[in-house]
Structure formats: C-alpha cells, structure tokens
C-alpha cells in the first residue's frame, strides 16, 4: 500500500462535527501568549507557529535572552559537555514566526485576558500557555534560602549556578566532603540529583580521590536507585554515602556561614554543599491563580488545559497532570498535545487523541549510560503510565556506551525540536 501524506481525503472523511471556532475569518488573528521559553514553552510556541501557518499570532515571553538547558548540565559538571553547548537563543523561533519578547511576566488578568510584563507592556490573549518551570519552596531546608545560594548552590536552574557548583567541586580541598541535600517529591528530573552525584564522583575520583560524598535524602527510594548504586560501587567504591530517612536523611539543617551540615543532630564540616530545595510551580502560575494547595497547577489530562480556566494551559514542571515525571522530555511531549488542542480551538484544525511519552537518560561514568522511560495516556482522572522500561543492572559495556551515545542524539533532537 502506498500512502502519500499530501493526499487529501476530500470527501470520504468523516466530518463528525462542524466547526464551532470562535474565529471569524477576516477579523483579527487569534492571539496566543506563551510565558516561559523552556522545554514546554518553546516547543509549544514553535509548533503553534509552524502548524498554523500564520493563522495564529504567537508571542513568547521569556525572562532570559539565552536559555541554558538543565538537561545535560550534570554532564557539563562532570566535564563531558561544554557549557556553551547548553545555551540556546531564540532567533530561529523568531524566524519561524514567533514574536519573542525578552521580559519578565509579572501579572495575569484572566478575566480581562491580559498579561502584564515587568517593562509595563500589556499583552492581550485568546489563549495563554504557562510553562514557567519551577520555583523553590521557602523554608524547605532549614538554614537555607535563595540568599545562601551563592555559598551553597542549588544548581537546579541551569546557568551561573551550575558554573558555580562546578567551580566549587573542582576547588574542594583534598579529602574534603561534598554534601547534597536531596529534594522531597515531587521535583524536576527524578534521577537528576543522582546523576549529579555520579558526575561529582567522576571529577573527584581523578582530582581528589580521598574526598567523600554524602547525600542526605528525605526519600525512602529514588529513581534508578539500583542502577546508580551498582554504578557507584563499580566506579567510585567507598566514596558515596547515601543517608535515607531511616538514618535521619530527612532531618537536616544547613549553616552556610560555617559550611556545616547537620544531619539528625550530627554536625559535619563540608567543603561543598549542593542544596536542592523542595519545589513548586513557577511563581507566575501562582500569580495567575491556576495552582492549588498542592502548589502545582492541575490540568485536564487529555489536553493540558488548566482546570481553573478554559483559556489557560499549563505545561511541564508547573503542571499537576498525574504520572509523568517533571522532565524536559515530558514538557516537550505535553507541548505538542497542547499546541494541537489550542489550534483546534482557535482555527478549527483537527485534533487527535493525546499520546504522551518520556525517556530520561543518565550518565553514571564515562560511556556508562542508563535510561528509564514510559508511555502515558489520558484517563478521565489523570495522565496515567501504561507501559515502562528501565535499563538493567549488569548490561554489557557496549550497550551502556550505545545508551550514552543515544542520549547525545536525544539532546540534539530535543533542542532542535524546541528551538528550530
């Protein structure tokens, strides 16, 4: 059978319902404003502009002129990727027909359907997409606040923080202690903290082999745990100590001035401390009033539309959708479903049942990559996982190397998919 995508099924097609689109041709074009030019927002803006062929006016509001990906920032830390390669500009999105405004969104008036920017500009919208990533919950790690991030970096929003953490690790005194305060669930990138530990261990193994790593963790279990623990034993034997909640890993306090970490009452002097605090939806989602008590923004599983407002969509880390982990891959996948649904509402284009997927690669040591992934479908209640897989302990070196190389391909692929 030969199919050609340029074939049209002009008459045979089951035109189920006639269009009820609010747009009247000839009137002003419908406007979509996207806040946040990251994994969710950039993808959504690009697909809306590309697939609507100019029928929708797409404006992307992004605080930073250059986006630094969190994904692969751990590899930068480990010396496997250059910082410059984590950075992406918005020129190609502009070329694709997206109006990119480099400013901070400070207000959302859902009744008037406007967004206000720090610079004073007011943008009207027909549909609003929020993909602002995460912010940190105040007080989640006693003794730490954003003011202390210059001493004890979070490095959980990529950029100068990531560079600072790398510098600190490389400058650790011989035999010093690296501490990580791991975050409680849910947070962005479930395997992220543990991939980071692997990368720090890789640096220390060659530069500072008597150094120690401790992880204070409030969680009983973490993603890819068996794979990471196996890898740490094989590559960094005796270096990494994981302190779970049974041993006080959830009862921590940090003292940035003194460079001390207190775990279950026991004080440890540390040379470097990476505090990854508890997280919540990006502030603008809260300002827009689409978050709930969970501090995340609930969405409809079949479209990513906010449950609080039928003209607002929330993508990526900020959304509460069900089973998908907060990852760049998830945000990108959700953005495509959202772009399709919004186009459907504004231009009457066809919509199809939502499909979502995610895969997260992690690097444990040179050429030792692992991955975990799942496919998801909407149920009436949530986005539910329907199938999953994970790398196995004991895979041969060739497979692990291929997995790592595949992650490089994924990085090239997703950044091209986001930014054009």
């Amino acid at each position: 059978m030969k199919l050609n995508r340029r074939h049209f099924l002009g008459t045979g097609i089951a035109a189920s319902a006639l269009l009820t689109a609010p747009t009247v041709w000839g009137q002003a074009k419908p406007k979509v404003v996207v806040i946040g030019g990251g994994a969710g927002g950039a993808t959504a803006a690009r697909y809306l502009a590309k697939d609507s062929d100019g029928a929708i006016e797409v404006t992307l509001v992004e605080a930073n002129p250059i986006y630094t990906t969190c994904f692969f920032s751990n590899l930068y830390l480990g010396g496997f990727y250059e910082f410059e390669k984590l950075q992406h500009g918005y020129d190609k999105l502009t070329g694709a027909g997206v109006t990119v405004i480099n400013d901070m969104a400070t207000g959302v008036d859902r009744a008037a359907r406007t967004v206000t920017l720090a610079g004073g500009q007011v943008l009207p919208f027909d549909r609003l997409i929020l993909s602002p990533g995460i912010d940190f919950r105040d007080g989640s790690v006693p003794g730490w606040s954003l003011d202390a991030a210059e001493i004890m970096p979070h490095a959980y929003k990529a950029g100068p923080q990531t560079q600072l953490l790398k510098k600190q690790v490389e400058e650790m005194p011989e035999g010093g202690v690296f501490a990580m305060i791991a975050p409680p669930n849910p947070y962005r990138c479930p395997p992220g903290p543990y991939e980071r530990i692997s990368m720090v261990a890789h640096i220390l193994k060659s530069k500072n082999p008597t150094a120690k790593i401790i992880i204070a963790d409030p969680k009983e279990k973490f993603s890819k745990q068996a794979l990471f623990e196996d890898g740490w034993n094989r590559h960094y034997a005796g270096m990494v100590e994981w302190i779970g909640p049974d041993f006080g890993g959830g009862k921590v306090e940090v003292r940035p001035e003194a460079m001390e970490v207190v775990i279950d009452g026991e004080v440890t002097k540390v040379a470097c401390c990476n505090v990854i605090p508890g997280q919540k939806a990006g502030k603008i989602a809260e300002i827009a009033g689409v978050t709930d008590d969970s501090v995340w923004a609930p969405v409809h599983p079949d479209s990513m539309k906010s449950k609080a407002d039928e003209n607002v969509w929330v993508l990526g880390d900020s959304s509460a959708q069900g089973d998908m982990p907060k990852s760049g891959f998830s945000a990108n996948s959700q953005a495509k479903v959202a772009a399709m649904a919004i186009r459907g509402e504004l231009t009457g284009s066809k919509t199809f049942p939502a499909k979502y997927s995610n895969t997260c690669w992690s690097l444990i040591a040179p050429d030792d990559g692992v991955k975990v992934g799942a496919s998801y479908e909407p149920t009436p209640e949530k986005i539910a996982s329907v199938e999953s897989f994970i790398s196995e302990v004991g895979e041969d070196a060739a497979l692990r190397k291929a997995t790592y190389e595949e992650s490089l391909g994924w990085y090239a692929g997703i950044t091209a998919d986001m930014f054009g």
Partner: protein
Amino acid sequence: MTTARRSCIAAVLFALGTLPGASEEIGDAARGADLFARQCKACHQIGEGAKNRVGPQLNRIFGRRAGSVEGFTYSRSMARMGADGLTWTLQTLDAYLANPKALVSGTRMNYRGMAEPEARAALLAYLRDWSDRPQDIPEPEPTARKTDPDLAPEVLALRGDPDYGDYLASECQTCHQADGSDQGIPSITGWPEEDFVIAMHAYKQKLRPHPVMQMMASRLNDEEIAELAAYFATLK
C-alpha cells in the same frame, strides 16, 4: 507547509473534539479500600507505618519480587516463586487474588480467592495507591491498563491525512531530527516506506531489541505505522 494544503484543509474543516481518555483506570480504589477493610485487614497492613502481621505489609507491592519483604517469614513455596522471578504486577496480582493456590501452590495465605473481576480490579487500584508513583520514580509499574492500539473509526478514517501524520510524527521528532541529522540516534527521514514499515513492526513484535522503540511502536496500529512511513519518506 504550502498554502494549497491549507486551503484544502479549510475546505474540509471539521473538529473532531478531543476524544475521551483511551486507557482505563485500574479500578475503583474507593471500593477497593472497603474490600480491603473487610477481607484483608485482619492479616495485612498497608499505609503509613504498616508492619508485618500474620501476612506481610503491602506497601510498595507493585514491582516487588514475591517473597521479598524484609523480616517476614514466607512459605517455602512463596520464597521459591520469588527466587524464580515472580514479580507482583497488575497481571500476577490479579491472578493471585483470583486464586492464590493456582499461582503459588503452597502459599500460607488462607484465602479462597476473589472471583469477581471488578472487585479484584478495585482492590488492585487501592493497593496501587500505596505503591511508588511514576511521577516521582518513573520506572514503577503502570497505573492504568493499556488499551489496544486499535483506534476509533473516526480516527482510522483519517488515514492518509497530513494533519494526522504531522501529529503522529511530532512524537518521533523529540529524538529523530526532521532534517535527517543523526548523532547517536539514527535518521528516519527519507527511508523507503516499506523498510520503515518492516522496521516498526519488528519493534512492535519485540524482535528488534530497543526498549524505547518497542514502547513507541507498541501503541501504533498498522495504519498509523503506514502513515508515519509515508510522512518520513516524503519529508523534505
């Protein structure tokens, strides 16, 4: 994207509307809680602080090896099944609840079994709530039953529809670059359609080994695979 194509679309403008969720919840967890209280609780604890009693505590049972709760002494039969690789999933737990002795002949669980499939589904949904959440740990057992990739007739009627091709292909393009570059992930642009179709079916049947591709292919039906083959063959 050509204007010709767009005007064609305008001519056949229609809105399918978003279809209801395709996959199914495991079951009614509220009913499951009630069943648990009446039929299981005498021997098993679940939830915060659950301890082993006559039977092992049941937190995190999904994805766990049979016979592996620390500090609990199992029947030899159950321990052997665990050693042989029995893992608790939706399918294995369902079979065990239906008739414990059918799955583990020498189990000490003194329970006749639960005949009604819906009741088992409800109980499983309740037990699932106390296992790992994929949002936090992406690898755990699924939380919903996967539906067949068989699609509704309205969707099948879209075969050969460029919009549907666009949408399906967007999922591939998170990893496979449209312009055909390949760095670590092969290019799928410009393949002969037949080769594409054969490769996808080989993943779907799990003949080709890659887990991501097996998963992606497993939820595509024949028409969708053909659609994608056509899409990528003609992609410029």
